[in-house]
């Protein structure tokens, strides 16, 4: 029996717009959330989202359907965002060849995390998340929001599993003091 991922792979190979339409519906929010975590800002994300889907249409045949679709999609989005950062440094992001993405302070106005916080704990995390190094924020979002395995994250970010794990530990260590000394 054909699995969902194989159906997606077939649809992408055939450049089936109906399949893409379903994928857009299904993954759009997660793609936006991932790109916000990567860029640390909300403006400009919609352009990257559109660019990502166009790249999916263009290079869809490289998705083999043997693994989950999300890691492949996020990797495409990440490559597009990193390329844009290298070409447009005024996008207020600094890139570093070794580290991938580095600090991304938002320029004025409330941060996307402050605007998106819907719970008390989220409000407490918003500022720390905004100032957190993007590579740590990205690792936390991929592990705990997207529920991806360390291996899948490793493929997306192009770093060894041990580096991904270490980014998660350091990200948690930075955010944990917000809740220390309290009984939940």
């Amino acid at each position, binding site marked *: 029996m054909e699995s969902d991922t194989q159906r997606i792979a077939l649809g992408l190979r055939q450049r089936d717009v109906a399949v893409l339409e379903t994928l857009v519906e299904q993954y*759009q929010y997660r793609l936006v959330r991932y790109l916000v975590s990567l860029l640390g800002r909300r403006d400009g994300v919609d352009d990257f989202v559109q660019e990502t889907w166009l790249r999916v249409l263009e290079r869809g045949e490289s998705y083999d359907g043997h693994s989950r679709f999300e890691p492949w999609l996020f990797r495409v989005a990440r490559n597009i965002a990193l390329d844009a950062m290298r070409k447009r440094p005024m996008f207020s992001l600094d890139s570093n060849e070794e580290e991938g993405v580095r600090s991304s302070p938002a320029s004025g106005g409330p941060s996307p995390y402050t605007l998106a916080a819907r719970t008390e704990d989220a409000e407490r995390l918003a500022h720390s998340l905004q100032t957190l190094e993007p590579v740590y924020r990205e690792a936390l979002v991929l592990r705990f929001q997207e529920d991806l395995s360390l291996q899948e994250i490793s493929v997306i970010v192009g770093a060894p599993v041990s580096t991904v794990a270490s980014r998660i530990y350091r990200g948690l260590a930075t955010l944990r003091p917000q809740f220390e000394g309290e009984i939940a």
Partner: protein
Amino acid sequence: MNIDHHEGFQRMIDESLAAAISAEKEQSLREHLATCAPCLEYLSASNRVIAGLSGFSFEVNPTLNARVLVALKLQAQQVRAAQPGRQRLMRQHNVQFKVWAAFAVALSMSIVGSALIYQVAKLLTVPMHFGTAQVQAGVLVFWLLPSFCSALRLLAAPGENRGIA
């Protein structure tokens, strides 16, 4: 309990949350957490961080999906329109490769065949009173040259006449 001992277990808590822990370590951690308040607090704070991460809800521009779909449909049409030209180009490349491959095979057969014919003709030199030079000239004129010309014709003939799709 000393600080190093807690640090070891707190490291294990991080590993457990990141799903990078073995079953044995997980069991040992569970036993430790049943009796250690500081490590339990560490776990609780970590869990609140993780829960806090789920407390964000980003606004998605309501027109974004429609905008993306319009761009995708346009791009798909452009790709499809460009497809026949691309396919024709690929077909031509494919045909060229097949012609060169056929030429290489024909040339190899011509050379190998000539060598075999020459050996057979040499055996006939004694009973038929031919000299070696005459045999060589015969093989060259009546075998090697015609077969080589046939191989060359493969390259010169138009694709449709080569019988290669």
